[in-house]
């Protein structure tokens, strides 16, 4: 009995050591590339090829940041990304909330409509982006903020709709019904009762839409050019130059990490719902 107890204990201890080792290694794995990128961004070019590698530069410098933001038009990319991402996020949250409310409260279009919206999420972007490119060229809205905002709104709608759909379905109707009994119109019950109650969920859905737009590359690559280019597309400029642009690429990466990581970590309570389009409650 005693022997069994002690072996059980050591098995537990072993399991717990294994657990911390695993988490430790995985943390290292996650942090290493981010640290190396930060390290590269403040490292003078003369340290690039040193052996052993320079783990922290003796003379940190900000020259790469300056070059990335101004010489490589990173700042313009940030401005464009902000314009496009914020507009598309606002539109997506608005249209998504409207549609989700109708789907959740009136079962509009039955299951077909809701699954039709969901299926948009799983369309391969390459199938959409080629014809959209041709259509945009014909309409003269290729390489404009407007064009990309519209594309991003559609691209984020399934997530907005389904996150809000899941939320409205589990939100009690009683308040809205009371408002209707009180003589309010359905529109008033929606805008003045349901929307304020759902505000936290709308904000969460908007955060994930923003992150999706901020980090998107493929649509921006095809649908923009020298004018409306977004931040991720600036990284094209650093390809193919052996070595010389490492610092600039790293600096721009570090700058663009900020907004999406801060928002993402702040909204992590809603992360599971965001990743599964509301299918799983975190």
């Amino acid at each position: 009995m005693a022997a069994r107890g002690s072996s059980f204990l050591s098995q537990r201890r072993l399991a717990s050591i294994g657990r911390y080792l695993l988490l430790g290694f995985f943390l290292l794995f996650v942090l290493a590339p981010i640290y190396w990128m930060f390290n590269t961004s403040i490292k003078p070019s003369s340290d690039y090829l040193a052996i052993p590698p320079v783990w922290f530069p003796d003379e940190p410098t900000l020259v790469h940041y300056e070059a990335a933001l101004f010489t490589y038009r990173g700042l313009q990319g940030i401005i464009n990304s902000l314009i496009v991402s914020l507009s598309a996020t606002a539109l997506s949250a608005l249209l998504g909330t409207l549609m989700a409310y109708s789907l959740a409260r009136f079962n509009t279009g039955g299951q077909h409509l809701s699954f039709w919206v969901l299926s948009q999420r799983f369309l391969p972007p390459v199938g959409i982006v080629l014809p959209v490119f041709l259509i945009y060229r014909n309409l003269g809205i290729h390489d404009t903020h407007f064009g990309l905002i519209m594309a991003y709104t559609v691209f984020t709608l399934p997530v907005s709709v389904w996150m809000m759909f899941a939320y409205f379905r589990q939100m009690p109707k009683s308040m809205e019904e009371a408002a209707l009994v009180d003589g309010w119109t359905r529109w008033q019950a929606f805008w003045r009762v349901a929307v304020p109650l759902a505000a936290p969920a709308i904000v969460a859905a908007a955060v994930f839409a923003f992150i999706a737009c901020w980090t998107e590359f493929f649509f921006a690559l095809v649908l923009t050019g020298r004018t409306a280019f977004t931040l991720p597309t600036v990284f094209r400029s650093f390809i193919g130059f052996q070595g010389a642009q490492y610092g600039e690429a790293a600096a721009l990466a570090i700058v663009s990490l900020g907004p999406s990581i801060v928002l993402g970590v702040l909204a992590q309570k809603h992360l599971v719902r965001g990743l599964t389009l509301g299918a799983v409650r975190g």
Partner: protein
Amino acid sequence: MAEVFRITPMEAAGAPPRLSSLAAWSERHFKWLLVAPAVLLILALSIYPLVFSLVVSFINYDFQVPGHDFVGLRNFERVIADPVARRSLVITAFLSGTSVIIEFGLGLLVALAMVKSFRGRGLVMSILIVPLFISPVIVGQAWTLMLQRPFGPTNYVLSQILGQEVTISWLTQAPWLYISLILADVWQWTPFMFVILLAGLTAIPNNLYEAAELDGVGAWDAFRWITLPHLMPMILLALTFRLLDAIRMFDTIFIMTGGGPGTQTYTATYYLYTIGFAQFNLSQATAGSWLFLIFTALVVILLVRRLLKVEPV
């Protein structure tokens, strides 16, 4: 506040104010007006382009060839006959399949390690989810910086650990370039698996384990007979969502290998992008993207529909 919106006696008496016919109409069609903007936008920017691309794939729309003649299935035949296209589909299946399996295994292990609370768990959690909020382009850039010879520290660290000189060309030489691409994908998306599986693990009632421990059931058997069955819906959901995203793999390849050397790391999306926007064979590209779309749609219909119906919300 409520007073303002109450129906006035005049309205109730049937003397409607101006605009009330519009108001009544919008009230009657309330549920359709709510869905209309989103549906119209999806029709305009997703369904119409798809139809348009189907048209383009049956004519020659290529920039070098004049005229828009109907060419029947020739564009489809050209894609199917192209060995690079077929190879890119194999590469897509290989890269996405391998990445998703590794992400699942690693994600499950990390989720199991994170279930019980410990000091600093919140902080660890916040760090582990960071890759999810980073643009895949930057992930590709970060791993390029890590692996690129002679700049990256990876070969140096490996040399120190193994005690012998390591000189691997991670981004230009098979099989290392596939490993590098999988590494970047695993880095970014293991947190996806881990977050969903952790939510699933947390939802399993603890008393099941307590009962099992009283019955003298070992840790492995508890995992096999309690954890796995309860986690299964979540596992299927995570695998499906991840797989459907993984088969689009493009951004990291664009940055890390540029599809090369040659066409060795062409995925389906990269291949279609190249023939569409580098060679301007737009008709062939749209034909190919329709084939890829049908391929994806089959997976969606088979997996997603069934899954989300089963899923207990």
